[in-house]
């Protein structure tokens, strides 16, 4: 077993373990940061697979996103510190079966899909960054721009509905 296989397996298991911790803990902040470390472990898996840009990007993006999620979980949950030992799971039977079905589906996709010829050597990291840039501004540009604009629209819409209209404010505040 090569070092590469070992580290991919190690970080994969770490990602799964932190994913389990998300539901084992009672604390909202622990739960959010456990999800962060699960995602960071995924980033480390990318690094082990020699996809340097993707790995660093994953490790960078998730830190901000999960931290912001943490404050929303603290704001909106009734027991943010977890001292009341609120159960983090609900609809147990449905979520269990949904989890098993999606796991089987993911494994089936991994095993049965024809992935084409396996690449034995990866291009060096700088070349990968160049290739990725050309891909994003070429063939995949429409997909990424559509996704980007959709997310931006959602953010603006969410902000717009969160702001109280000025007329409402003047009526209710003195």
């Amino acid at each position, binding site marked *: 077993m090569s070092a590469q296989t070992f580290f991919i397996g190690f970080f994969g298991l770490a990602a799964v373990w932190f994913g389990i911790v998300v539901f084992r803990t009672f604390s909202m902040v*622990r739960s959010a940061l456990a999800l962060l470390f699960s995602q960071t472990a995924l980033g480390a898996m990318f690094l082990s697979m020699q996809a340097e840009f993707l790995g660093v990007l994953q490790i960078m993006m998730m*830190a901000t996103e999960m931290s912001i999620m943490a404050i929303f979980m603290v704001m909106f949950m009734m027991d943010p510190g977890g001292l009341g030992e609120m159960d983090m799971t609900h609809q147990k039977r449905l979520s269990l079966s949904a989890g098993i079905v999606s796991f089987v589906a993911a494994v089936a996709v991994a095993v049965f899909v024809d992935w084409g010829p396996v690449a034995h050597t990866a291009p060096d990291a700088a070349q990968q960054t160049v290739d990725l840039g050309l891909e994003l501004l070429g063939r995949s540009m429409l997909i990424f721009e559509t996704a980007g604009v959709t997310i931006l629209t959602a953010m603006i819409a969410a902000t717009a509905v969160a702001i109280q209209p000025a007329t409402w404010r003047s009526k209710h505040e003195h």
Partner: protein
Amino acid sequence: MTTVLILLLLALGAYLVAVIETWTITGRFQLAAPLFAGIALLGRESIVPRKPDRIFFEVAPVLLLISAILAAAVVPLTPDLIITDLATGALFINAALVYVLVALLMAGWGPDGAYAMIGGWRFLGQLIAYAMLIVMPITAVVMRAESLLTTQIVVSQAGVWNIVYQPLGFVLFFIAAMALAFLPPFDLPTAKGELAGGVEAEYTGVRLAVFRLGRLALIITLAAATVIFYLGGWQGPWLPPWAWSAIKILVVTATMLLIGRFMPRIREADLLAWCWIFGIPLALLNIFLVGVLVLVLP
């Protein structure tokens, strides 16, 4: 060997930051003061507050230090004096420094104290303000260098330094770097005199020593990042490359600390508003201008 040397230089740099910080605040130049302060901290009792989130409480100071060290790993002091010249170096600096936020959140939430918690969440708001002003100016720097390699970024400034080529980006990055290092006037998460130390409030003894060391390492790392992105890195006449790196980094550090000395602390809401209303459009303008320059100039 290079790794050990850079870690030693980082420790020396952190020490000098402490000396310079004392000098900017009190006007006295005391070379031995941080040493005695450090020994005093190590000698003190390190108290654990009641009902802490123990994992976060213990991990936070160490994580702060680690993220500063990781960012320093891709900063070249001379063409050869760099721990690892990553192909994604400029992005990696940012990725490592985002964990400063995670560390401060942990330090805020961990000790179960009101002041600490306010300080921790405040820094999250501060990140929303400064984050884009770190990333967007770096994008413009990378556009000119046509590479994410930090060494390549320094080489790209052989003719004209980026501070001249993209002064707008420099100003934005400089301000954002001060906010990232929570230096005054952006010291909202610690806010001495208002939050009683904020995220530092519940830490004592050796844990506080590690936390403060992490903060000092963060400041020197950001000063070094400013130097390689905008001030031509190791380049300069007459003196050897390492000397230029050292001089520039110390001058940037002193400037960062001096500016804070003469500014009142900025309100959280004002910082967010100014960064989003003025900062981000200016950063986009900077990207556009650099794009035009890259295309027009040979």
